[in-house]
């Protein structure tokens, strides 16, 4: 589904990604872990098409298309979803209106008729129940005055509504207490399906207690330096990042 080949990316002339390779198949859950500043969020931004980042080398194919050739909105319409680490506030625009616009833009792109009010409402009710989100939250201005947990839940709700092929969850666990984390993780688990892949980006192992990944990759200094199964995450939890990063630094110095 997603094939990342030797991606290098800069911001303000500084190289952050230094050759990333990654293959994700439908139904798989991958976790990318790494210390702060390793390039995790950059990878998410590059895949979603944030313009500040310049891809200098490499290729990304998504569902057989050249992802890097697509505009941000077309990537979204093709089924790439990014759950933001810091979802922005848009004053005066309710989540309901916002997501309605998004759903219908996607349908238009796919050559489908826009949903009428009734069908849209029905869909919303279903997804609300699925991810345990309150109606009241959806009628408020998007993310404005939301708590950390509410923002993340709102992201998962939008993911449910947009039914992506690939969902990238950028530090979705950051800033959440254990109860909020559990609700958010439950939501994501319910959205797992054989034709949907999920890429979890996280600093901590604890999210992976709730969402079991198929593969775990360690990102360090712009490269994936180690890949493995979920046991790798446990090992990281136990020994810290140092046991890998020291190894890498040592190798680099030799």
């Amino acid at each position: 589904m997603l094939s990342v080949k030797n991606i290098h990316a800069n911001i303000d002339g500084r190289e952050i990604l230094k050759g990333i390779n990654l293959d994700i198949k439908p139904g798989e859950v991958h976790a990318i872990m790494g210390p702060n500043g390793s390039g995790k969020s950059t990878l998410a931004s590059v895949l979603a098409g944030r313009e500040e980042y310049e891809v200098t080398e490499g290729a990304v194919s998504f569902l057989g298309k050249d992802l890097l050739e697509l505009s941000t909105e077309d990537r979204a319409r093709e089924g790439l979803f990014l759950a933001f680490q810091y979802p922005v506030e848009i004053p005066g625009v309710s989540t309901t209106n916002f997501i309605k616009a998004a759903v219908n833009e996607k349908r238009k792109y796919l050559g489908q008729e826009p949903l009428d009010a009734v069908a849209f409402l029905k869909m919303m009710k279903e997804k609300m129940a699925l991810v345990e989100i309150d109606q009241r939250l959806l009628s408020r201005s998007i993310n404005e005055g939301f708590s950390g947990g509410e923002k993340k839940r709102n992201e998962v709700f939008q993911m449910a509504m947009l039914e992506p092929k690939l969902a990238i969850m950028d530090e979705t666990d950051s800033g959440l207490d254990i109860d909020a984390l559990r609700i958010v993780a439950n939501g994501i688990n319910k959205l797992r399906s054989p034709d949907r892949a999920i890429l979890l980006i996280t600093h901590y192992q604890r999210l992976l207690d709730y969402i079991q990944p198929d593969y775990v990759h360690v990102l360090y200094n712009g490269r994936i330096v180690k890949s493995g199964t979920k046991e790798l995450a446990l090992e990281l939890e136990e020994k810290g990042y140092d046991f890998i990063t020291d190894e890498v630094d040592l190798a680099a110095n030799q």
Partner: protein
Amino acid sequence: MKEKPDTLEQAVLTEYKYGFVTDIDTDVIAKGLSENTIRLISNKKNEPEWMLDWRLKAYNHWLKLEEPKWSNVKYPIINYQDIIYYAAPKPKKQLNSLDEADPELLATFEKLGISLNEQKRLTGVAVDVVMDSVSIATSFKEQLSEIGVIFCSISEAIQLHPELVKKYLGSVVPMTDNYFAALNSAVFTDGSFCYIPKGVRCPMELSTYFRINTENAGQFERTLIIAEDESYVSYLEGCTAPMRDENQLHAAVVELVAHTKAEIKYSTVQNWYPGDKNGLGGIYNFVTKRGMCKGDHSKISWTQVETGSAITWKYPSVILKGDHSIGEFYSVAFTNNHQQADTGTKMIHLGKNTRSRIVSKGISAGHSQNSYRGLVRASKQATNARNYSQCDSLLLGDKCGAHTFPYIEVKNKTAIVEHEATTSKIGEDQLFYCKQRGIDAETAVALIVNGFAKEVMNQLPMEFAVEAQKLLAISMEGSVG
């Protein structure tokens, strides 16, 4: 007419009966302004002597005034001798079908969701609609008169209710108030008159839409609304359709009087011709609007959505004379291409415990200049006066300007006045967030702008709000990217 259609919808469905309405007075007097012009206008309107005297007084005062220069707008010198001051009523160019109408105009109607029949009426296709809207207006009038509400043209009021007109005309905006008010006082041709008697809550939104001769009242409109004790009225001004008017200069005066515990809500959606993309043509909209909260516990609320006119220069104001009176001003001003808007409000606190609130949202795009100018004054007697003002500006594009000029004058030590203003462009982060959800830039900007303006839009009556929202989206077209 014997049978009165119940609704406009029915009215426009009725058969085209009379062909052209030919009994329209096509009188046009010569260009220019002099005492004779005014005598002529007054004479044509068959006005009483006192009205003519009033006009002449205003004219003589106007001669002594200089055109104001302080606003943040630039326009070529207006030659006041090159204007036709009496051309009413002017027949519209008759079209045989909508096919003959300006396609750009029709496209706009389409987007606004204006019905086909309504489109015909606005472009002047079906003349019978105009006739029938007269009858509708009449039917409303009857309904209103049963509860004592007077709603008619100001010309009619001068004939039928001279005592009210004499008492209130110029009582809020004196003829000597400013250059354009003086000019209007001298030469106004028509406008609305509303009188809400004591204790009456006007059961419907009064609107210029239903008024006879709306189309021709344009250039120097004069509106007077009086709400007696404990009455309420909501008045809608203007038309959301983009009327192409060849009058360059519009200098209207609106006066509101709210007596004890009365409330007047005045909503405007202004979408006059803004000129073309290069800034050619368009209306100069120089308006004086002022309300007087005369009685205790009275309230006046102005809401405006301004997207039209080449130049807008208006400051709907409230004089808070009665104790515990409330003044409100909610405004969205959108400027695009080469439009210039200098708009805002004045809240003059005179009474005790008076309150005012100002919410102004300015959006600038293209090469336009958008200024908020507001005055909040707490006079010495205005014990416990409170004002809160919020002025936000949003910039779309790097050729436009957004300016804020609040004047705050406080002479009472118990007054509390707060003003906040921000200016920013649409955040890159907001745009990226929208795009990541599959929403393209233009839709995203429309979404964000409507969100930005929501607090004001919410003040509009429902059906008006929907149209205003669409209007905003249309005005914004081409301003992104």
